[in-house]
């Protein structure tokens, strides 16, 4: 006769079976419920026939059949399920669906607001083209990032004290981007470009704090923000490609009836679309995060070995031929970009790696990649250092040099931590912590470029 103890253990076994089935992609929760109903009825019938509950469970399981074969059968019938679909509204009924819909509506409103914000200065006679282009370049991030932050403030229900700090950051950014007398043309153009490039980097940290929503102080929270940033970039590029196709067709068919859409495209479609797409892409990344495999780590897996091979070949060739790095104006920026790419490859492979798994071949590739990038950069820095006095310190060069040093420090210490991990003397989480702790450094340097460079290099 079934005792309470037996009943519990059978319930436990059913729960375990359910969660085991739940991991199969082709079997959805509705199907599991259907199979479970079957299993329970079978167990009840067998128990009535005199079997002990655990025996009944075993027989019923056996009759149900091999779970691998079953999930293969399901996969054959529902092959679409193997392709994870981005169903923005989840199929489970009830509250989550309503929440997802609200989320979509709110995100859409923020996107529309961002699209309209970029047109607000035009009301005051500041046009996108000609002499006001510098104004837009410096302030571009200020049109969209506050709204993106607003979306996350709403989504994460941030308290008012955090909100106040975020607002202060944006107001300060607005002040520093516009308080200096940037004039069109001449030497200030370089500073305008520097502000345009660095303000978004500084403000991205503010977005991150809103995104992490109170988890910024934790490694996990910052790592999530890194993952979010990578996915956002990929989604944004995809949306931009789609937008380009749409625009091309629009231009073509309107051309056919003799209408030139270029003015509309330049002053409305491109700026509003580019701004709104940031919020839309962020919302998509949020909505899909658990549904679709992250793309950034996949690309990392693909390109890490290729970049490592290119860099090793580069170092080998330059050693073999004895060619030094040819110092031209932009060489430092080129090597900065190289380090950024390598850092990105490192970051996104770190973000996708299970810290508990032991070192593998891919980890060795990563270390080779990082070390060869460091050596290549050292070669370039050596060449530049020899002639830096000759070139003089222009704002561009100082900014590029500062970035190079920041990236170099990050990658050098990452290499040390990674090698320690490979030799079993450290854990992978050290590397994670180092990378996530380093995030504010980029923002601080970017803020310095925006706030300190203009007075130092020209105006006051």
């Amino acid at each position: 006769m079934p005792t309470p103890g037996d009943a519990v253990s059978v319930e436990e076994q059913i729960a375990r079976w359910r969660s085991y089935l739940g991991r199969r992609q082709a079997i959805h929760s509705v199907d599991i419920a259907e199979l479970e109903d079957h299993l329970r009825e079978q167990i009840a019938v067998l128990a009535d026939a005199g079997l002990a509950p655990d025996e009944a469970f075993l027989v019923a399981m056996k009759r149900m059949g091999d779970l691998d074969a079953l999930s293969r059968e399901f996969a054959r019938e529902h092959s679409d399920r193997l392709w994870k679909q981005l169903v923005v509204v989840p199929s489970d009924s009830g509250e989550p669906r309503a929440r997802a819909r609200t989320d979509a509506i709110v995100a859409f409103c923020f996107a529309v607001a961002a699209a309209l914000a970029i047109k607000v200065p035009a009301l005051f006679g500041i046009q996108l083209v000609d002499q006001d282009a510098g104004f837009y370049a410096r302030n571009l991030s200020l049109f969209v990032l506050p709204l993106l932050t607003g979306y996350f403030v709403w989504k994460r229900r941030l308290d008012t004290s955090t909100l106040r700090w975020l607002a202060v950051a944006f107001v300060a950014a607005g002040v520093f981007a516009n308080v200096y007398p940037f004039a069109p043309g001449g030497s200030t153009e370089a500073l305008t470009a520097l502000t345009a490039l660095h303000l978004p980097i500084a403000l991205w940290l503010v977005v991150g704090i809103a995104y992490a929503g109170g988890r910024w102080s934790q490694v996990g929270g910052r790592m999530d923000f890194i993952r979010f940033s990578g996915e956002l970039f990929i989604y944004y590029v995809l949306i931009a490609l789609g937008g380009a196709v749409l625009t091309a067709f629009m231009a073509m068919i309107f051309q056919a009836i003799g209408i030139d859409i270029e003015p509309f495209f330049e002053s409305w479609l491109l700026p509003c679309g580019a701004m709104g797409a940031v919020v839309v892409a962020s919302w998509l990344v949020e909505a899909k995060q658990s549904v679709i495999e992250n793309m950034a780590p996949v690309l990392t897996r693909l390109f890490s070995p290729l970049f490592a091979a290119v860099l090793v070949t580069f170092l080998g060739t330059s050693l073999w031929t004895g060619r030094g790095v040819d110092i031209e104006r932009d060489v430092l920026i080129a090597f900065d970009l190289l380090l950024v790419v390598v850092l990105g490859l490192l970051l996104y492979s770190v973000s996708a790696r299970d810290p508990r798994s032991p070192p593998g071949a891919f980890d060795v590739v990563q270390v080779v990649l990082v070390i060869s990038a460091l050596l290549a950069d050292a070669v370039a820095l050596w060449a530049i250092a020899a002639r830096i006095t000759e070139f003089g310190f222009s704002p561009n060069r100082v900014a590029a040099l500062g970035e190079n040093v920041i990236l170099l420090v990050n990658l050098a210490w990452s290499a040390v931590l990674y090698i320690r991990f490979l030799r079993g003397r450290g854990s992978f989480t050290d590397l994670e912590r180092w990378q996530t702790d380093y995030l504010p450094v980029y923002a601080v340097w970017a803020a310095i470029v925006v706030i300190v460079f203009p007075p130092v290099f020209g105006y006051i």
Partner: protein
Amino acid sequence: MEINKDLIAASSTPIVLAILAEEDSYGYAILKRVRELSGGRMEWTDGMLYPVLHRLERLGHVESRSEVAESGRRRKYYRITSRGLAQLAEERRQWQAVDATLRGIWRALFLPVPASHPASAAPLPQGG
């Protein structure tokens, strides 16, 4: 006696459709009915019925609804549609042709029929 997998797979559609043509039913009860009808000789792996039901549903031969059963659990009931009935009629014609052919050749062979199970009268459910 064990019936081979290909035969089970081929006969599953007409059997399930015919059982549903008798009355609306659900997974466990369908399997129970298969066991009764075949005298225990058609041993289906229980789980495999469900992908079959889902395929029939996708093809529009059956439709499902969710109801709370007397056990208190939600249960998915299946009902045959008019398309399913047409499909069943078609399957029945085809199986009868196969059956007639085999009967003809058995008779011509004059082979002794191997010792049979008492419930062998209705190897196929006749419904529709």
